[in-house]
């Protein structure tokens, strides 16, 4: 039982990271109708910028994080304005592949600037742990949960109550009707990319912190956030959070139990488990748990 709860705690900490990235996917999907594969690039950028400000330039850690998040958001806005806006009206598939191309350019830009070595973030949490009863909490995990919870709360409050948040929902619902109401779709696109860039930068910082290190491999979190996003439904922000946590917990359970229960599934099966869950869910519910089914008329 202790193991089960411990795995749940660790899994949730892992899952909130997925949730942040998945939220970025969902925000852009709602605004523009495409999955943004370059999200992994933003994750990298956030981690390396935080490292750069904090370690190389010696700024305060939280100031560095804030700067990284702001720059992540700005890069998002820039990419939207310079590149993605030209793709309006093109087939969805073309836009998706374009974001894959962007991902490659971003990854190589990051590795050209900061190199291929693993870097130490020297964040305030380090490898410290605390014990509470039978359970072990990594300080990084606690930080991940707290920071993500704050970030997600801020997002949902903004999404629900601010004028811009309402505009975003209106554009997602019916772009033309929203335009007719005087909502600027351009502004909504820009804000969506800014939010995606910001949450991805935050997710990147959390990935590179603690016992982990800042390395190019952290962009993989975006690939594992796909199942989280699909699980929740492509256009549901709440679904992204639920999906992220479910995927994190399931992945951790698999890591904890599969070697004993089903060793024939092989080593590191937990790394592909999110995809197995995703496929099973999609077979039952083709639009994810909370996604809006598309209506098709000839």
């Amino acid at each position, binding site marked *: 039982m202790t193991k089960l709860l411990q795995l749940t705690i660790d899994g949730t900490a892992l899952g909130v990271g997925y949730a942040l990235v998945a939220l970025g996917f969902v925000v852009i999907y709602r605004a523009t109708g495409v999955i943004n594969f370059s999200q992994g690039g933003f994750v990298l950028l956030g981690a390396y910028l935080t490292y750069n400000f904090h370690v190389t330039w010696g700024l305060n850690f939280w100031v560095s994080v804030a700067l990284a998040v702001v720059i992540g958001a700005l890069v998002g806005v820039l990419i939207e304005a310079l590149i993605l806006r030209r793709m309006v009206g093109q087939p969805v598939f073309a836009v998706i592949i374009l974001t894959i*191309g962007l991902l490659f350019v971003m990854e190589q830009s990051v590795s050209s600037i900061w190199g291929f070595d693993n870097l130490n973030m020297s964040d305030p949490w380090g490898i410290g742990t605390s014990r509470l009863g039978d359970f072990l909490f990594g300080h990084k995990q606690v930080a991940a949960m707290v920071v993500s919870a704050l970030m997600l709360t801020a997002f949902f409050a903004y999404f629900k109550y601010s004028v811009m948040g309402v505009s975003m929902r209106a554009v997602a619902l019916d772009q033309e009707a929203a335009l007719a109401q005087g909502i600027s779709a351009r502004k909504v696109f820009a804000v969506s990319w800014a939010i995606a860039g910001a949450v991805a930068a935050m997710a990147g910082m959390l990935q590179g912190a603690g016992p982990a290190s800042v390395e190019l491999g952290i962009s993989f979190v975006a690939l594992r956030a796909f199942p989280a996003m699909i699980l929740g439904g492509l256009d549901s922000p709440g679904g992204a959070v639920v999906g992220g946590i479910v995927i994190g917990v399931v992945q951790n359970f698999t890591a904890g139990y599969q070697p004993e229960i089903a060793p024939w599934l092989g080593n590191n099966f937990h790394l*592909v488990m999110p995809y197995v869950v995703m496929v099973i869910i999609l077979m039952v519910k083709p639009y994810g748990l909370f996604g809006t089914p598309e209506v098709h008329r000839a």
Partner: protein
Amino acid sequence: MRTRGAAPDLVTDYAQDLRLVPNGWTAAGLLLLAAIFVTGPNLFSGFWVVVLGYAGVATIGAVGLNLLTGFTGQVSLGHAFFLGIGAYAAVQFGMNWGLPLFLWLPLCGVMGAIAGAVIGPFALRLRGQYLVIVTLGLVFLGEHVFKEWRSLTGGGTGTAVRPPLTLGPLDFSGMELFGTAYNRQQMLFWLIWAVAAIGILGAKNIVRTRPGRAMQAVRDRDLAAEVIGISLTRYKVGAFAISSAYGAVAGALYGALQGFVSPTEWNLFLAIQYVAMIIIGGMGTVFGAVLGALMLTALPRLIEDVSRRVDMPFVSGDKGGPEGFVTIFSVQRAMFGALIVGFLLFEPRGLAAIWLRFKAYLKTWPFSY
């Protein structure tokens, strides 16, 4: 300059439009290609024969993917998985069972088709971007299975791929022809491009007959296609099966050419490369897939080749030595990404469209505008 009345190149009926060899120019072009094919191993240096061999493999795979994505509109990021299936089918049928070339190569295609037919039904249930992500998941699941199926794939260390390569009097693992000795790579150049030619012809014939028109109808509006009596099950699953068969044959030849494969090769990057080939080449044209495959296979090697001769500023690992902050690998990857972005922004219809425009320019010269 035309002297014989109305321009004879204008297409005036459908039968003409569907002809494989519409005019003398195409015939001359095909003859030229045939000549390059026959003399290839003598014409190109050893390095470029190998590169062209890989380009041939990529051509087969890209033509297959284009049937699925370009003609049927089903986006797949899972092509790498089917290539892997082909390579391991070659290990099983060719090496473990010792079947001859004319049996194991088609069998690889059959295995690919079966795998595709199993995955195909997902395309019936899922739409658009959900399907993209599922095929992406397929690549990760496939990589895992390939890594763990150690008896067949050799696990993390990989496995040799040395299936028998004799066909009648021809031995593609190296033989003497007309007094000249040809090595394995040179012989495989002929084998691969011969298979590629068959594949291209097959694809051409699929897309200009009823199944091809049905596939394009599904791509353009699947509901409308269904209403006029096209079975979505049949054509979506069929397109997956055919495209995977092409992919598997490409994978088998890739393994044979490389002589060795490891499970990590069938990754997302490979799958994206194939998608990039059909985008850069031109979606929905067989010719475009060929162009894209040639370009994306040759370009990195060309960069490598140039880097060995020229000292580029900021680039390490080139002729100038290790200084510089960008590796040649980074340049290749970034170039690859930039190519995708550039083509999608400025020429979404790919190299094939550029070629068509160039042809139109020549045809109407000197009255081009």
